[in-house]
């Protein structure tokens, strides 16, 4: 067995703080002058000056991946997963350590990045394929397969700017999925498109691994990681927390609260909050009251927050406010249990309380939804705890023709997808054409 990827003491440092990603010459000169002056005074240039603040996105990471292995990479946002993939694909250069990659590697960090809106689907497939490292003959040979996999045959000679986002993503993923590389790095791309297309993508990844290709797969979705990867590496703050069998590592991940899941619970010792109140659990529930990560767009969804209140409240009682963000980072709406003034405005004694927010069916759009929790009181004013991405869930819209889209199955616009009432009536025969 050959080692496909060998990583030894790999580290990547970025500058923080006042650092502008796009510097000007003046800054560099000014910085150079300051450090030269410091050196002359016999002091080393400060590492912690306002300009020199550094952060290690990846630090001291070592692992080996054997040929044919399928390895998952999990960790919360900012854990260093994407930076690690960028280092392995040569997009950015390490600050220290080394990485050895054996064989042809292709990375899908974000699909469709080479797409140009003015070019047609056909032209973009050819260009994107070339950017991803495909040979011309290879593109020609696979062209039809790529287009039919994406399901955009009729629009292939239309400029991409006329495509819906979903169509663009499908086409882009399709190009990437047909790469004949030895090693495949995949980042989060499966979180796009409708359920049917996601299934297609998963199938393609399974195929790739069964053909003996080496795959390194990054995802938020514990479910797809578990399905695809026998081995998982858990990253946090740029370093490896655990590396081993998928079941064990995913358990560590979920237990440590490092991940974003649909259900989180705490013990009285670990519960986040303050002396007034602490959160016991936050869960996403389906109609039947069962915790669920994937929910049907047509059915109501409950967000349940339970907490322990330790003191008598005099002014107002602790309240739960939830903010809902989609996977594009757009805030869709926010809601608070303060609308129940009968509970909120009335002082009450210690105990366990439960607030449930019901999101009606046929309101949310398809995709990942992230929930931010603000657990606070207004009188006396205090934020007991707040956390973005406290839970997250996936909303799925089946393409069965019963949804908001009617018989149309293409990507549907809008950050919400309410089912609205339509009235259609006949107003009688034509009079002006008689």
């Amino acid at each position, binding site marked *: 067995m050959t080692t496909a990827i060998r990583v030894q003491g790999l580290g990547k440092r970025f500058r923080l703080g006042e650092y502008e990603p*796009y510097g000007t010459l003046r800054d560099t000169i000014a910085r150079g002058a300051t450090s030269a002056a410091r050196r002359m005074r016999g002091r080393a240039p400060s590492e912690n000056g306002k300009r020199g603040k550094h952060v290690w996105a990846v630090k001291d990471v070592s692992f080996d991946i054997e040929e044919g292995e399928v390895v998952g990479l999990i960790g919360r946002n900012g854990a260093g997963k994407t930076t690690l993939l960028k280092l392995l694909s040569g997009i950015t250069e*390490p600050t220290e350590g080394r990485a050895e990659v054996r064989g042809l590697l292709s990375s899908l960090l*974000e699909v469709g990045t080479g797409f140009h809106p003015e070019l047609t689907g056909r032209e973009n497939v050819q*260009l994107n394929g070339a950017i991803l490292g495909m040979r011309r003959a290879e*593109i020609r040979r696979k062209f039809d397969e790529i287009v039919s996999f994406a399901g955009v045959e009729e629009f292939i000679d239309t400029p991409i700017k006329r495509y819906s986002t979903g169509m663009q993503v499908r086409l882009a993923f399709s190009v990437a999925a047909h790469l004949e590389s030895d090693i495949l790095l995949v980042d989060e791309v499966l979180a796009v498109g409708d359920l049917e297309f996601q299934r297609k993508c998963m199938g393609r990844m399974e195929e790739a691994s069964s053909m003996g290709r080496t795959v390194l797969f990054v995802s938020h979705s514990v479910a797809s990681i578990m399905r695809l990867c026998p081995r998982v590496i858990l990253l946090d703050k740029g370093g490896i927390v655990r590396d081993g069998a998928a079941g064990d590592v995913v358990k560590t991940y979920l237990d440590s609260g490092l991940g974003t899941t649909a259900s989180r619970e705490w013990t009285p010792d670990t519960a986040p909050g303050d002396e007034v109140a602490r959160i016991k659990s936050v869960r996403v529930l389906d109609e039947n009251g069962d915790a669920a990560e994937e929910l049907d767009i047509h059915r109501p969804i409950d967000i349940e927050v339970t907490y322990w209140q330790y003191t008598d409240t005099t002014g107002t009682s602790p309240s739960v406010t939830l903010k809902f963000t989609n996977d594009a980072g757009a805030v869709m709406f926010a809601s608070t249990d303060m609308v129940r003034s009968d509970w909120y405005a009335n002082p009450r004694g210690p105990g366990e309380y439960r607030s449930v927010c019901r999101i009606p069916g046929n309101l949310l759009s398809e995709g990942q939804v992230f929930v931010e929790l603000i657990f606070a009181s207004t009188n006396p004013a205090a934020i007991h705890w707040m956390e973005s991405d406290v839970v997250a869930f996936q909303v799925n819209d089946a393409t069965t023709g019963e949804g908001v889209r009617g018989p149309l199955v293409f990507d549907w616009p809008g950050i919400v997808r309410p089912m609205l009432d339509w009235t259609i009536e006949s107003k009688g025969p034509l009079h002006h054409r008689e």
Partner: protein
Amino acid sequence: MRSDLSEGTLDSGGRDEPIRHDLSSAPTRVYRPRKGWVGFGLSQVLAYRELLFFFTWRNIKIRYKQTLIGAGWAVLQPFFMMIAFTLLFGRVANIPTGGIPRPIFYYAALLPWTYFTSTVSSASESLAQSQALITKVYFPRVMLPLSFALSSLMDHTIAWVMLVILMVYFGVAPTLTIALLPAFVALAVVSAMGIGLWSSALNAIYRDVRYAVPFLLQFGMFVSPVIYQSSQIPEAWRPIYFLNPMAGVIEGFRWALTGVGQPPGLHTIGSVAVAFIVFFSGLWFFRRTEGIIADLV
């Protein structure tokens, strides 16, 4: 133009490799901090030559999308400059043109000069503009600035049509020296690539370059024999004057076409030498900064 690339005329040596199931014989790539001599990266340019062709083709395709007169711009720009020069420098300043009609004198210089400026200005923005691509996919970034040197050749070729019309109209026959013309076009490509490599890499790091490039290009026209002949430069200064590679290109281009100006000689060697020094140092500098470009753009 048919959009199907598979029927393209440029043969880029399509290689078609089967999937390897055994990696033991596969080449290994090593990533580590870049230190010391990094070379020019010519082998990478060769390995990715198909991509260079694709980028060039893309530049040409999108250049005049949604414009009214499209590729007509390639002719109009030098044409109107030529008219302005003819009226201004001909009538007012009365600069000698060596006996050929003024429009041809100016247009023959504007052809390589326009090629140079459009290549350098688009190449210097090429990295900053492809930010999304650079931070998400690996490919030799050097292909971006280089591709503009090739795609601008398309405009250059179109602009030739007007030169032919002018020569027929004024009854100016090309001299035999026209056989040397391709060499000067090639020198223009090398010069534009060299400056483009430097300015694109610097522009990815320092925003100042964006403001400096248009100014330097304007300035460059006055230190190149576009509106005058190099013979008007004092003899003692000429060796220095011709260290500007575009001085050699323009003087040579006009001479090869019309016989006006200095025939190639020692001074041309200066231009050629500087052009190649700038080109190879540009490749080296680009390669040196390549690893951090994705962090900076």
